[in-house]
């Protein structure tokens, strides 16, 4: 051991030993907090394991290609067919319609709130939007069936039936407006004030600054809000269960009823399917596919945020 050059005579009454034991208490607390954090991770892992296990059982009875590429879904019929494409198509139709409603309205609301609204208007409108986010989705489903279809869509499209992808899609779209508006607004507001001033000092008008400086600067956050909204629309269940109908069909016409992946899962659970039967197992295959789709979108959204985020000093 090297000699300590400061301890010339080897004696010192400086005591730094303290209570070395309190390190144990710190470690216990750390471990408890770690355990709390692990609950959500373990839950996610548990979901994946259960889904994958039962889905594997299903794929032993129905080959994967005929599940993924089959164009007929008649799981609950006497002659069952398990081609998931009609359910995927129904889901994508409703998601598309919902996004067509929610993206423009949500982004424009965010732009208004962030760039144009007076503090007073903002204090009224922002909480109202957030209130909209707190409405149970079953209420939107009810709204789609009792108002959107008969009062708005029926006069425009007399041939529309009681259930349609269009009515459900519009209701889902209205439901996710607050999500898009709130997240996009956060992104717009996080653009530094100095950039707005820089734009205005160049002789730009407020709308030129809003659309050509602020919006591009917030692009990653805006795109992330769009993707999260899409993922929310894909997973939405109650609205489509009520308003879209339960007819799984590959159709290019959104005025027709369609069944989504989530809609099918609800239908099976609320019916009397025997546990362990093929239709029962098909739930897990559909659920797993749904899980993978939303997971993929969420990962994509995180990638977008990290790839395109502008770092301001």
């Amino acid at each position, binding site marked *: 051991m090297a000699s300590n050059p400061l301890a010339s005579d080897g004696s010192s009454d400086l005591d730094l030993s303290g209570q070395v034991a309190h390190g144990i208490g710190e470690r216990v607390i750390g471990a408890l907090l770690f355990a709390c954090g692990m609950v959500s991770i373990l839950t996610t892992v548990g979901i994946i394991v259960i889904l994958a296990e039962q889905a594997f059982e299903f794929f032993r009875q129905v080959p994967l290609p005929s599940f993924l590429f089959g164009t007929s879904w008649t799981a609950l019929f006497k002659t069952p067919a398990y081609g998931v494409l009609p359910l995927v198509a129904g889901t994508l139709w409703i998601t598309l319609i919902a996004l067509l409603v929610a993206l423009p309205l949500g982004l424009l609301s965010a732009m208004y709130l962030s760039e144009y609204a007076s503090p007073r208007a903002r204090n009224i409108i922002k909480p109202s939007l957030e209130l909209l986010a707190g409405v149970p989705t079953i209420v939107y489903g009810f709204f789609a069936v009792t108002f959107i279809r008969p009062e708005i869509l029926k006069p425009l499209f007399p041939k529309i039936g009681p259930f349609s992808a269009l009515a459900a899609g519009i209701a889902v779209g209205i439901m996710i407006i607050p999500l898009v508006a709130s997240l996009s607004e956060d992104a717009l507001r996080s653009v*530094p004030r*100095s*950039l707005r*001033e*820089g*734009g*205005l*000092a*160049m*002789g*730009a*008008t407020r709308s*030129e600054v809003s659309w*050509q*400086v602020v919006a*591009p*600067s917030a692009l990653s956050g805006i795109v992330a809000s769009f993707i999260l909204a899409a993922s929310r629309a894909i997973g939405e269940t109650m609205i489509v269960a009520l308003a879209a109908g339960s007819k799984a069909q590959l159709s290019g016409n959104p005025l027709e009823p369609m069944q989504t992946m989530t809609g099918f899962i609800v239908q099976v659970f609320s019916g009397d399917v025997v546990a362990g039967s093929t239709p029962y197992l098909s739930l897990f295959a559909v659920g797993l596919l749904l899980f993978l789709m939303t997971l993929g979108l969420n990962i994509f959204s995180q990638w977008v945020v990290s790839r395109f985020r*502008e*770092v*301001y*000093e």
Partner: protein
Amino acid sequence: MSLTTERAGIDQITGNARDAIGAGVLPEPGTDRNVVISLRDLNVHYGRFHAVGDVNLDIPRNRITAFIGPSGCGKSTVLRSINRMNDLVPTAKVDGTIWYHDRNINGRDIDPVMVRRRIGMVFQKPNPFPKSIAENILWGAKINGFTGNKAELVESCLRRAALWDEVKDKLDASGLALSGGQQQRLCIARALANNPDVILMDEPASALDPISTLKIEDLMRELARNFTIVIVTHNMQQAARVSDQTCFFSLNEQRMGFMVEASPTTELFTNPKDRRTEDYITGRFG
């Protein structure tokens, strides 16, 4: 000259629509072609707070005018009145006249957007847009309806901002990828693209290292050949180094800022007229 319509020529000086005012020792605004901006009885309130009182000042053409003074003395507020940036503060109220050539740009009939196209601004913290270097320069020109050769404009602005040699091979790189000093020179180049005749600089070097600061100061001297520059600075040495005219601001017991004196820079630093200026520049106050 019209600031209310799109892109009027600067030479159309009509000389009408002007109130006659008595301006003490200062010449009547608009009569001296070597004066670009004249502030007369400028007062700024933020809500009930009287931030700046009774500023009277002439800003000469193709010269650098520096505003110095302690924090809170209103020098940035005065600067921001000149390009109507105080309009962005909802509680701000600017009274008095700001003659720009022969027009009162503090008037109701004046569009602040048109004012800002002629009076450019560079801020304390470099604030390039998160766009490429070339786009940073072209954006202002584009919103001003520029139709000429874009590549030439980019090159000439970058050259005049002494940045061309450092960035000519990466014009498509993001403006945010540059160093702080380069970003600030990019912001100056961006302001030049509008072809203003006045450039306001609000502590343009206070966020920069000493070498970048010297580069900005050299650049200011160079630009003063063609532009009228007004700079706010906390740094007295900087004011002494770069400016032709220095204005010393102070604040009274009510925290209202006012201008103590405006003198040629060498005179202000060697032989100040006012005792308060002397106290400040010799470090006894501030």
